[in-house]
């Protein structure tokens, strides 16, 4: 038939089939950041490279690569060079993430597994790592159960729990902005636990929740939620949405003029989000989990300079540091245990304090024993427009550094009951 052939009929059924096809995406083979050694130690990174979390994933990868270079430059792990095997977990498909984790462990025989930004995916691959007894580090999936009610002996986490972030920012908000809070929360594991954490912290300090909405992940139009928030007349509108959703929500809140009437705030905020906002929308009180502009903290300036070489001149974000600290955690665990045996490494990391050139924060950071959760400093402050004459990526003003142990609460409250293999 010629190119001008008359159309075959398009039926409604074909369009419905087309919708189903959207879910059927397979991803290509991993690419390997290779070292020169003959029998390398393998670290598998199962993290998003495409989709909503691609920008965050890319930054974690940059941090991982710098750590990889440094580890190899210092003689590798137990004298063996290290390879990083990178897989795209997708941003939201737990099935793909789990399949990639199994492939990395079963086929590629990785010694360590690292991932994932999406809380739900991190929890899913943590179960695979546990089943296979592989030492795993979750660099950036925040939901509490990973080092709480679903904690595992071989799963460590670099980023904070949502409860830690909530505790860190709550008292500042109550003091500076008021006690009546309205929540705009993403409708999945991360959002639920973050809101629960904030409600708990807020109530303890005498604040109240006067309303809130759960927004589907990937919401583009937040106006209806913002209308409801305004109708409730709160002191503070709490934005718990993350990534692209946060960019959309804040951009629209400022267009509606809500920043003039209410205090806009939230728990977790990321430099990636602030960079995606026009200057007038870089506002609000937030928690950063790591920040690059710490002039008085040793080793930070060198780290920033090194990352700039890997990132086309951009400063490291908290995500970059997560990736960096996650890979170093693997190397340090082996070094401490003098073995690649997962049980020995996990035991060696109980209560382990990261060296200052890895922790890169004023009070350091350590893995809390019997929880495997890193307890770092948290940075409370305000988003800002880049200072005139300063670095264009200096978009956050730290007003208070909260020690992780003060934000973490007692171990019993986490619900973590770890069972070690016999």
């Amino acid at each position, binding site marked *: *038939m*010629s*190119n*001008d*052939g*008359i*159309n*075959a*009929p*398009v*039926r*409604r059924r*074909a*369009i419905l*089939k*087309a*919708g189903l096809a*959207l879910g059927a*995406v397979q991803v290509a083979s991993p690419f390997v950041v290779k070292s020169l050694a003959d029998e390398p130690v393998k670290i598998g990174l199962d993290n998003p490279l*495409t*989709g909503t979390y*691609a*920008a965050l*994933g*890319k930054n974690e990868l940059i941090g991982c690569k710098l750590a990889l270079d440094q580890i190899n430059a210092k003689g590798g792990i137990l004298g063996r060079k290290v390879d990083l095997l990178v897989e795209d977990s997708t941003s939201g498909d737990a099935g793909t993430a789990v399949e990639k984790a199994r492939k990395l462990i079963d086929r590629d025989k990785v010694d360590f597994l690292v991932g994932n930004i999406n809380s739900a995916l991190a929890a899913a691959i943590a179960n695979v790592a546990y089943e296979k007894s592989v030492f795993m580090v979750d660099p950036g999936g925040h939901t509490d159960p990973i080092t709480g009610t679903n904690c595992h002996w071989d799963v460590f986490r670099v980023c904070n729990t949502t409860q830690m972030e909530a505790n860190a920012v709550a008292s500042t908000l109550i003091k500076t902005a008021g006690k009546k809070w309205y929540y705009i929360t993403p*409708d999945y594991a991360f959002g639920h636990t973050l809101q629960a954490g904030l409600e708990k912290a807020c109530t303890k300090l005498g604040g109240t929740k006067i309303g809130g*909405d*759960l*927004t*589907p992940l*990937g*919401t*583009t*139009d937040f*106006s*209806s*939620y*913002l*209308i*409801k928030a*305004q*109708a409730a007349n709160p002191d503070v509108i709490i934005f718990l949405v993350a990534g*692209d959703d946060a*960019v*959309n929500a804040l*951009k*629209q809140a*400022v*267009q*509606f*003029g*809500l920043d003039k*009437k209410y205090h806009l705030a939230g728990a977790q905020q990321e430099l*990636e*989000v602030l960079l*995606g*906002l*026009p*200057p*007038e929308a870089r506002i609000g009180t937030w928690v950063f989990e790591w920040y690059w502009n710490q002039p008085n903290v040793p080793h930070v300036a060198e780290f920033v300079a090194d990352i700039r070489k890997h990132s086309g001149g951009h400063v490291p974000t908290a995500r970059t540091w997560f990736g960096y600290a996650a890979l170093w955690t693997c190397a340090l665990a082996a070094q401490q245990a003098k073995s690649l045996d997962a049980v020995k490494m996990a035991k060696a990391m109980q209560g382990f304090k990261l060296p200052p050139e890895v922790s890169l924060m004023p009070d350091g950071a350590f893995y809390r024993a019997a929880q495997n959760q890193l307890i770092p400093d948290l940075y409370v402050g305000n988003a800002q427009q880049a200072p005139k004459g300063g670095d264009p990526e200096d978009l956050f003003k730290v007003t208070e550094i909260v020690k992780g142990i003060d934000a973490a609460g007692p171990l019993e409250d986490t619900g973590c009951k770890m069972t070690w293999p016999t």
Partner: protein
Amino acid sequence: MTQLVLFDAFNGLIVGAFYALMALGLSLILNLSGVINFAHGGFLALGGYFAYTLIPYLGFWGALICAPFLVAVLGVIVERLLICRLYGRDPLYGLLLTFGLAFIFEDGTRTIWGAQSLPYQVPGWLLSPLSSAYFFLTGYRLFMVLIVAIAVVAMFLILNHTKIGIRIRAGTLDLETVSVLGVNVRMLRSLNFGLGVYLAGLAGVLAVGQLGLQPTIGGSLIMPSFVAIIVGGLGSLPGTLLGGLLIGVASGITTVFWPSATEAVIYVMMALVLMVRPRGLLGEEGRF
């Protein structure tokens, strides 16, 4: 409560107008060429990225005018090089091709402009809230609706009062006869594809004024547009417009009562329409 419902219904109309703009482009291509264009979201994203790139040189208004044209030109090239080879075949071929193109566009934009959201700035006077007490309306939203209205009216004028538009409509009904009468169907399809993709590009430029500009922006907006076509009725452009507005309003009102179901409600609407009136609200009987 009544006030909230009214606010949300009004707001839904604004959002719906935007869905309709995308859906009209999709519908044009589907009606004449029989191609279910899954790459429409990719063209939308490109509209935003072209505008972002052009703003430093042409300013906001120059970018608003030029970016959709560039997208349309790219669309015609893609149609001539790839899509035209699949005319007359099972629609699933075209669907698979455009599905692949959608990924190429997403990864292409990620490679060229980066995965990071980019800050897109619209003129300050458009950003001021016009009324937050009664309508909760911003200058930019009003501007968007105005541009959508102009684009829709212009499109209907073109389709009803120009030779090319009348040929497109005739081709939609019976392409074989139009071809036999000596109309250059190949060129007609290219122009029609360009027009449909132009609307996607325009939607992209408008969207990035209030959404983050990132490679996935098209993907998040494409599904409501498909739903708008099915609800409104395949083959009917007024139906597509109505479908877009209806799902916008339904989604807005749902926010008042059950916020987490705002996305689901449009699919429930689609299911109901398919059960009760399978050809869609204004779809032509027997055509699909």
